């Protein structure tokens, strides 16, 4: 205790004496500090040194924001963005940490994204600039949309198309759920057109709408292409709502189906030959080549991963895609996306709009999937439990699990998991197709 007081006193006196002496010189030299970069060091008194040091503390930068301070990209920041904005962002980031760790919200991406955001909001450090750690990562693989493709390749190598191949027509459920994308496109357009809150361009509305596809890498890929300025908000919304699938979906599923429909037992699926699984990714990529080349990067990477896995002759490589490579890229993707959580990029009215639209998109996609399930159940020979339509939003494999859980609650012993995996993986393809259509429109 004695020691503490002693040290504390000594340190504080030292700083009080030196720093205060030069308090007057602080404000004048503020802008000079920005330009000193190239000049050789000039002798200073300890008082001057301390003053200069004080100016370069984060707390000073946040308490006394200056006109003309720029962000990592040379754009001027408002006084709000330099001060209160950062505080708000820190609060949002701690909330994200809490959600990721305590609530298990897609921690593999939300945790690195939030940490990237934490670093991006540190004043003075300018870590999002081209020479900063986050900027280097962003330019390495997000500005050029490379990292989301690598993630997609790894996801492809983890995906089993067996359930879809054993019951092909459930793919259509993964199509219906894409109403989530186009519904939110219209939502974003309407919000922009009929309210004064936000002013989205069509490209921006398109980028936002992909949240409804419930595929993180697809969202990031499209946002980076069509509206990089909204990347942070879109990624956070996409992953947050994907984590909320077990909360968002069940009420909608129950509201749109009757008890009888929810209890439908589906017949056991046929066994799928290895050759079918092997050829499937080639069919997908050839169809993309012929019909929708704009989706070629996304589906190409995805099919590559899946083909490597199913080939059975390059296990070294497909294991690599599923492990070290996707892990490394996930770290970098998260940090790079997080760099867009800097207060000046994130604290805009658009972010709020994106959050609202994203929620609606998930609800719309779920509803469309379930309704399509009802229609197909009417027309199909074999019974189809409409609940599995909800899995069409993708969010693999969470949505399929939610379907299985809701189904088992209604009729214990009715295991819908494998049946729901079909629309679930088809939803990934459906979202990529929808994304490709938007890209082709804006190209």
């Amino acid at each position, binding site marked *: 205790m004695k020691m503490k007081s002693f040290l504390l006193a000594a340190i504080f006196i030292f700083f009080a004496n030196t720093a205060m002496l030069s308090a007057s010189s602080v404000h004048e030299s503020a802008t000079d500090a920005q330009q000193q970069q190239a000049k050789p060091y000039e002798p200073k008194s300890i008082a001057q040194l301390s003053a200069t040091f004080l100016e370069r503390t984060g707390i000073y930068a946040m308490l006394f924001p200056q006109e003309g301070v720029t962000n990592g990209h040379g754009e001027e920041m408002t006084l709000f963005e330099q001060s209160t904005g950062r505080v708000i962002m820190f609060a949002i980031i701690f909330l994200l940490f809490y959600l990721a760790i305590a609530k298990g919200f897609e921690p593999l991406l939300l945790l690195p994204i939030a940490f990237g955001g934490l670093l991006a909001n540190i004043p003075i450090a300018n870590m999002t600039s081209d020479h900063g750690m986050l900027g280097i990562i962003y330019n390495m693989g997000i500005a050029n949309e490379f990292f989301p493709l690598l993630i997609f390749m790894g996801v492809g190598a983890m995906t089993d198309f067996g359930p*879809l*191949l054993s019951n*092909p*027509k459930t*793919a*259509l459920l*993964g*199509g219906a759920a*894409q*109403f989530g*994308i*186009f*519904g939110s*496109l*219209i939502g*974003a*357009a*309407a919000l*922009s*057109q*009929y309210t004064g809150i936000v002013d*989205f361009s*069509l490209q921006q*509305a*398109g980028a936002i709408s992909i949240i409804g596809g419930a595929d993180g890498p697809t969202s990031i890929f499209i946002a980076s292409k069509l509206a990089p300025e909204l990347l942070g908000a879109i990624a956070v919304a996409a992953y947050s709502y994907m984590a909320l699938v077990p909360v968002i979906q069940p009420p909608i599923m129950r509201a749109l189906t009757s008890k009888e429909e929810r209890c439908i037992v589906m017949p056991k699926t046929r066994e*799928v*030959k*290895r*050759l*079918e699984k092997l*050829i*499937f990714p080639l*069919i*997908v990529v050839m*169809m993309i080549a012929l*019909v*929708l080349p704009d989706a070629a990067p996304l589906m190409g990477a995805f099919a590559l991963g899946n083909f490597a*896995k199913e080939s*059975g*002759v390059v*296990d070294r490589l497909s294991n690599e895609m599923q492990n070290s490579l996707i892990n490394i890229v996930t770290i970098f993707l998260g940090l790079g996306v997080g760099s867009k959580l800097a207060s000046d990029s994130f604290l805009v009215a658009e972010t709020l709009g994106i959050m609202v639209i994203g929620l609606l998109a998930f609800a719309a996609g779920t509803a469309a999937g379930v309704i399509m399930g009802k229609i197909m159940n009417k027309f199909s020979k074999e019974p189809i439990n409409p609940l599995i339509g909800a899995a069409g939003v993708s969010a693999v494999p969470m949505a399929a699990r939610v379907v299985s859980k809701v189904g088992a609650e209604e009729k214990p012993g009715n295991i819908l998991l494998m049946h729901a995996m079909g629309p679930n993986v*088809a939803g990934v*393809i*459906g979202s990529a*197709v*929808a994304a490709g*259509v*938007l890209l082709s*429109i804006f190209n």
Partner: protein
Amino acid sequence: METNLVLESLKFMVLGMGVVFLFLYLLVLLMQLQAFIVGKFFSNNNDSNTIDTKKSNDLDEKRRIAAIIGAVMQHKK
């Protein structure tokens, strides 16, 4: 002249959902065709899954340990 964003978005939806369904529908047909062909011409049982090799090796390892210890035990008695 101002662009009506909602109107444009509606058009995009018509095109987009059309393409999504067309694409997936074609995919369904190709999957069914493939299942038919594979089932007809490649119905041999060579579905050995190369990917599980490592897993089974691990199991083998454990079985081997068990066998060795068993033998040791036998011997001690």
